[in-house]
C-alpha cells in the first residue's frame, strides 16, 4: 500500500508542473502588456518601462517562469495590483465558502442519486426504473441557472422559507449560514444527482448479473445485504470517479451559482479577476484550483484501492 501511494505521488509531479506551465502562460500569452493594463490609458512610455523593469517583464519568458515558480514554491503567489491583497489572502478568504457549498452539494446529490440508483438497479426494467431514468435524463438537460431561478421563485418568493441571496460566515451564525446555503447547494445537487444515479445504476445492473451475486442469493442472504454489501462496493468505482471530478470542479467555485446567489466564493473571485483583468489573482487562483483538482484525482485513485483489493495488491 505504501509503495502504491508513493508511485501515485510520483506520477503527480509532472502533472503539477504542466499545470503550473499552463497557468503561467495565461498571463504571458494574453494579448496586451501587463504594465499597460496596470497603469491604464494615461501611462507614459517612461512609466511603463519602469514598471516592466520592476516586475521583471523585460526578462526572457523562461526566466520569468522559473522565478515565478520559485516564489510559488515559497508560498508567494503574488499580490493583486488593484487591491494590494495577496493571492493567498484572497483565496483563503473565499475558499471556505466554495468548499462548504461543494460539500453540501455533493452530500445532497449522493443522498438523492445513490438510493435511487440502488432501487432502480434492483428493479431494472420495471415501471419505477423507467420513470426514474426518464426523469434523470430530463434533469440532466436543465441548466443550473434555470433550476436556481425556479428554486428562488418557489422557496424565496412564493413560500418565503429561505433567503434568495446573501451570505453569513458559518463561524458567525451557523444556522443563518446554512439557511443561505440551502438553495445554492440544492441547485448544484439537482444538476449532479442524475449523473450519479445513471452511472451507479448501470454499474450495479452489471454487477447484479455476476456469479457471486447468484451465490449470495443461494447462501440465503437478505436482499438488503446482497445490495449494500455484495453489489454496492464493486459497483462504485465509476461513482467515485465522477464524484471526485465533481468535487475537483467545485473547488474552483461554482461560477454561475455563486453569482446568482451572491456567494463570496472562489467562482466570484475568478469572474471578478477576469472582468478587472487582475491577472496576478487570476493566475494564482487558477494554479491553486488546478492543483486542488489534481490532488482530488489522486485521492480518487487511492479510494479505488480502498474499494478494490485487487488494485491494492497490484493485480488488476
Amino acid at each position, binding site marked *: 500500500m505504501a509503495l502504491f501511494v508513493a508511485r501515485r505521488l510520483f506520477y503527480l509531479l509532472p502533472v503539477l508542473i504542466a499545470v503550473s506551465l499552463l497557468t503561467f502562460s495565461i498571463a504571458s500569452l494574453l494579448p496586451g502588456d501587463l504594465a499597460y493594463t496596470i497603469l491604464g490609458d494615461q501611462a507614459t512610455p517612461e512609466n511603463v518601462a519602469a514598471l516592466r523593469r520592476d516586475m521583471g517583464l523585460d526578462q526572457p519568458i523562461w526566466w520569468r517562469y522559473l522565478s515565478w515558480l520559485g516564489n510559488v514554491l515559497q508560498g508567494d503567489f503574488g499580490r493583486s495590483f488593484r487591491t494590494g491583497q495577496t493571492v493567498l489572502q484572497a483565496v483563503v478568504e473565499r475558499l471556505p465558502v466554495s468548499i462548504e457549498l461543494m460539500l453540501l452539494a455533493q452530500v445532497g446529490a449522493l443522498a438523492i442519486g445513490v438510493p435511487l440508483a440502488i432501487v432502480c438497479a434492483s428493479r431494472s426494467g420495471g415501471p419505477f426504473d423507467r420513470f426514474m431514468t426518464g426523469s434523470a435524463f430530463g434533469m440532466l438537460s436543465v441548466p443550473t441557472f434555470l433550476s436556481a431561478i425556479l428554486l428562488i421563485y418557489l422557496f424565496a418568493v412564493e413560500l418565503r422559507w429561505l433567503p434568495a441571496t446573501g451570505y453569513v460566515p458559518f463561524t458567525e451564525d451557523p444556522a443563518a449560514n446554512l439557511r443561505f446555503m440551502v438553495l445554492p447547494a440544492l441547485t448544484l445537487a439537482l444538476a449532479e444527482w442524475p449523473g450519479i444515479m445513471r452511472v451507479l445504476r448501470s454499474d450495479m445492473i452489471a454487477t447484479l448479473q455476476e*456469479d457471486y451475486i447468484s*451465490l449470495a442469493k*443461494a447462501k440465503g*442472504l437478505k436482499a438488503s445485504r446482497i445490495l449494500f*454489501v455484495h453489489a454496492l462496493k464493486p459497483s462504485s468505482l465509476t461513482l467515485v470517479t465522477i464524484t471526485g471530478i465533481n468535487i475537483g470542479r467545485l473547488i474552483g467555485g461554482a461560477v454561475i451559482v455563486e453569482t446568482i446567489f451572491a456567494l463570496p466564493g472562489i467562482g466570484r473571485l475568478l469572474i471578478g479577476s477576469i472582468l478587472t483583468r487582475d491577472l496576478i489573482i487570476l493566475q494564482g487562483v487558477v494554479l491553486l484550483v488546478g492543483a486542488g483538482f489534481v490532488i482530488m484525482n489522486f485521492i480518487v485513485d487511492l479510494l479505488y484501492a480502498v474499494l*478494490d483489493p*485487487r488494485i491494492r495488491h497490484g*493485480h488488476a
Partner: protein
Amino acid sequence: MTDNGLLSVEDVQVDLPTPRGNLRAVDRVNLRVGAGQTLGVVGESGCGKTMLSRAILQLLPKKAKLSGRVMFDGQDLLQLAPEKLRKLRGRSLAVVFQDPMTSLNPVLTIGTQLIETLQEHLELDDASATRRSVELLAAVGIPAPEQRLAQYPHQLSGGMRQRVAIAIALSCEPRLLIADEPTTALDVTIQAQILDLLAREQRRRHMAMILITHDLGVVAGRTDDVAVMYAGRVVERAPTPALFKKMRMPYTEALLAALPRLDTAPHTPLPAISGRPPDPTRPLQGCSFSPRCRYAAAGCHTEKPALTQAESPEHVYACFHPIGIHAEAGA
C-alpha cells in the same frame, strides 16, 4: 425407493424467451434424490443441466418461465414464499458453482463471505462464527486457515477458491448440495482432489448431492444414480452400476465412447459424437438425438420416444432402438 426422497423434481420445464424465439432449456424433467444419496446429471454443454440446477435453486434469470414441481422435504420450492425460500437456501440447500474465479465476491474477504452465511442461518456470535470458519476451511483442506480469513479471493489459486466455495456451501450442514460442474474450471491435476473432497464430505455429513458434469467418468465411481440429459430432456436414468453395465440409450454409449481410456493404444483418435446438438429454439419433431445417432431408423425422425422402463423400474431410457434389447430378444 418407496418414498419420494429428499428432493423430487416433477415435470420441471424451463422456457427462456430469446430474440430467436422460445428456448426450451429444460423439457419435463423428473428426478429424485434420496437423503444421503448422490445423483449424477451428465450431458454436454447446452443440454440444460445448469438450467435444471438453477431451477431447483430458484436462481433462474428473471425472464425465464418455470413450471412443474420441485418438492424438497415435502414442500414445493416453486410455491414457497420468498422469505421461507431464503431461509432454506444456504441452510438446507447449498450450491457450488462451476467457476470459483467468479463465484466469490472479489471485494470481500474469505472470512466475511464464510461468516455472513453462518450468522445468517445459525445464531452464532462473532467469535464462534470465526472459530467455525477456521474449522470449515481446515476441513476442506486449506492450509493456514486462520490467515485465509483476512485474505481476498484473488490471493488464492483456483483450486483453493473452489475449496473455499465448498466450505461456504457446507457451512450450515445442508441436507442437499448441488455441485454444478465443480471441477470444470480447474486444472486437471486438482479435479480429482476436489471430487474426492466432495464425496468424502457428502458421506461424512450424510447429505444428498447432485453432481452435475459433462464427464461420465466423473460420475462413475462417485454416484448412486445417473441421469443423462440431452437437449433439455432426461434420455436415460439408472442406478450407476446398472447404467455402466447395460446402457440402453445410444447417446449414453456415444458419451462414454468419447472418453479417453487408459487401455486404448496411443494416438488412437477419440470417437467424437458427430454433428451438433439441435438448436433449442427449433425443437425437432422426432428424437432430438436422431440426426446424430448411428442406430436411427425412419420412425426416430418423426416421433419422440417416451421414457421406457428397462429390466428394473429404476432404469429408464428414451429410445426406440435401445442398445442390447433386440439382440437379447433375438437370442
